[in-house]
């Protein structure tokens, strides 16, 4: 009965996670088309304003993927996003945006299967949460 198709904005670090997504594509793995990938140089480049802007512009969920801890090409970027993520998640929850709509995870360039699993699970979760529809933004 649920034919709601969520829109998910995914920020992928160019070095690891984007390469992982690329690998999933080139090895013809299938994953839901609900994600709109934005390639960033490092997960640490994701300013919380980008996430808020995505929700404001109609995203039902936001996903950030970066290199595994210790593997960031700029050393500290993914630790930085890890800290920001937990602060921002609390703010979003206090504003009534459920936990399941905002995810951070690590995907290396070889982890095409992990990429597919994360995306599929996120889409499934957001589907069950329903549309975000923040009417104050209209």
């Amino acid at each position, binding site marked *: 009965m649920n034919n709601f198709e969520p829109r998910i904005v995914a920020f992928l670090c160019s070095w690891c996670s984007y390469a992982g997504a690329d690998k999933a594509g080139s090895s013809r793995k299938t994953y839901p088309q609900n994600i709109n990938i934005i390639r960033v140089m490092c997960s640490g480049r994701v*300013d*919380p*304003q980008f996430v*808020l*802007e995505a*929700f*404001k512009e109609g995203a039902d969920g936001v996903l950030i993927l970066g290199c595994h*801890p210790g593997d960031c090409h700029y050393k500290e970027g993914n*630790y*930085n996003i*890890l*800290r*920001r993520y*937990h*602060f*921002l998640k*609390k*703010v*979003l929850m*206090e*504003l*009534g*945006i459920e936990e399941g709509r905002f995810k951070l995870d690590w995907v290396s360039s070889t982890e095409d299967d992990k990429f597919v699993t994360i995306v599929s699970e996120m889409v499934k979760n957001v589907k069950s949460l329903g549309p*975000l529809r*923040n*009417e*104050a*933004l209209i």
Partner: protein
Amino acid sequence: MIKPKVAFCWEASCGGCEEAVLDLNEDILKVIEAVDIVFWPIALDFKYADIENMNDNEIDVSFISGAIRLNEQEETVRLLRKKSKLIIAFGSCAHLGGIPALANFWDRESILKKVYREAPSVINPEGKEPQVKTKTASGELELPEFYDTVKALNQVIDVDYYLPGCPPSPDLIMQTITAILENNLPPKGSVIGPAKTLCENCSRKDSKPDIMTLKEIKRPHEVIIDPEKCFLAQGLICLGPATRSGCGERCIKANMPCRGCFGPTDNVIDQGSKFLSALASIVDFNDEEEIKKVVDSVADMTGTFYRFTLASSLIKRKRRLK
């Protein structure tokens, strides 16, 4: 010389902004001498009809303080917009929504219920709540409509300039009035005040360690505050890194951390999330569990980071789950 016609008006606010005008002390006499006040409901006896009867653009400048939360306020500011050449959003509430916009964590229904039925001091067995229209023996009475969402002034009308602060500092007020009188205003849409952050001008900035780190966040009542050391370096939340300077560091001088009333600097839309980034970057943990502990220790995070800016933030209000 014809004196410029000036209006002052207050919407959803505490009245502190009007007080700030009086705080100009002797300077107020210069202002009164230089301008012709055509509307100032708090201080002088004018009626809305006096404004309605004016020509469009007849008022040179209207200073409007307060956020918009009633339809009456919306009508008033629309009328002032029509009759004024310049509209200046005066103070945090008009500029960014301010403290009244913290009501955006709730909505009309829950606020009226709390205030008229559930507050411990209320006796209201019939559960009466204010109505927009009430029929009485002598006719129908009308009250302004109470909105679900509090808005900043520029979410309702076009605003020419913004005077930040809760309330704006006397210096900035005089600077603005002088700029108006001398026809020396910055480009339309400017926030009047320095482009720097409060930290850049703060008297405590030299006490910051080279690399700022923080393992624990404390609240002002939990510690004896060092009167010279940077608040953030003491583990106290200070919005200085994400706040426009220009207030004269009023709170800092009173040994209290900045709460952000001057709003963000130019090019930043969302002051709360800018502060969030700054704070997160100095938390001295890479371990997820330790990070979570620090995050959990911040009470009312959104209310603290967005104390004056919830209405004008990217998300604007708490989502209604219906």
